[in-house]
């Protein structure tokens, strides 16, 4: 993930009101600059924030993938959100002394971080920082709304289609290569994200491969039939994801609009 100063594309902040682009850009630059003094790496499977334990830091994800996960008393687990390079996470730490869920590294991860009191101070000194964090929370919430609709009403194929398009689009917006991308999640983790079992995930992925809609070799995902996967995901996508091309001009969906 390139540092904010190097990201000039309007697509960095999808759906935003264009007049806020400069604020968002400046806010991100100020935050990442302040965080750059504190970097830390984690291995796949490491816990970055422990559920219910006191925590003091807000993070910027420079490289790798991170999951917000909840473990239930009977050992079921649900991955609630997946953070990709360029996302801020743990923002709620400014308000909450303890995080309600764990944050876990899905892949090798590099984060930069800042104490919540410094984040708050920074937002007081520079309102653009607040705008950037506000945008993060709003965008996370928008995706979560879609996910509630998908988990509540979507079938397994729709969920998998929507997940793949979401990852691909967000990686694209982060300026990363998406013709093929590494999907650093085990089938069990995908199952935990989609509310399915690992057997069901395996069955659907195999069906999509047999239909030549995707290829997945050694963790490398290629969406080989974009139109078909978009058709699959469309019922549970929100209006913004369905028409992403209208908003950022660079979406892989753009030709469909």
């Amino acid at each position: 993930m390139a540092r904010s100063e190097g990201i000039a594309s309007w697509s960095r902040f999808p759906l935003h009101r264009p007049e806020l682009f400069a604020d968002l850009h400046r806010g991100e630059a100020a935050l990442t600059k302040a965080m750059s003094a504190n970097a830390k790496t984690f291995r796949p499977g490491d816990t970055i924030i422990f559920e219910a334990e006191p925590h003091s830091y807000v993070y910027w994800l420079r490289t790798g993938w991170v999951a917000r996960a909840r473990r239930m008393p009977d050992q079921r687990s649900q991955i609630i959100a997946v953070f990709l390079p360029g996302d801020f996470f743990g923002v709620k730490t400014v308000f909450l002394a303890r995080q309600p869920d764990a944050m876990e590294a899905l892949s090798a991860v590099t984060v930069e971080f800042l104490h919540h009191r410094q984040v708050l101070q920074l937002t007081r000194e520079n309102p653009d920082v607040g705008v950037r964090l506000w945008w993060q929370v709003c965008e996370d919430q928008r995706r979560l709304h879609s996910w509630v609709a998908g988990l509540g009403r979507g079938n397994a194929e729709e969920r998998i289609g929507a997940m793949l398009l979401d990852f691909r689009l967000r990686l694209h917006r982060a300026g990363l290569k998406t013709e093929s991308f590494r999907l650093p999640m085990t089938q069990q983790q995908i199952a935990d994200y989609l509310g399915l079992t690992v057997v069901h995930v395996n069955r659907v992925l195999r069906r999509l491969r047999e239909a030549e809609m995707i290829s997945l070799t050694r963790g490398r995902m290629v969406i080989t039939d974009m139109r078909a996967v978009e058709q699959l995901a469309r019922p549970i996508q929100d209006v913004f994801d369905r028409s992403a091309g209208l908003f950022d001009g660079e979406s892989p969906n753009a030709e469909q609009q």
Partner: protein
Amino acid sequence: MRSNSERRRARQTHFNAEGQAALMVAESILIALIEHNVLTKMQLVEAIDTAISTKRQMAEDGQDPEVSRIAAGLIAALQTSIASFANI
């Protein structure tokens, strides 16, 4: 010569593998039943309800409560997954 604790661990690993294999075979058969239109997903979801409530009752009754509680969770996750099966 393996120690008692190593033998216990090996036996436990074997039990875990048996449990995983059984659950995966059962689920694969359930999926095949839906795909071949033998049962609808709603019929299966209702049938699985019986297994969940039995396991939860066993946990309440103190019969291997820890194992029963986790087993009920696993079956509930399977039920949720079956309920999301497409086009049936």
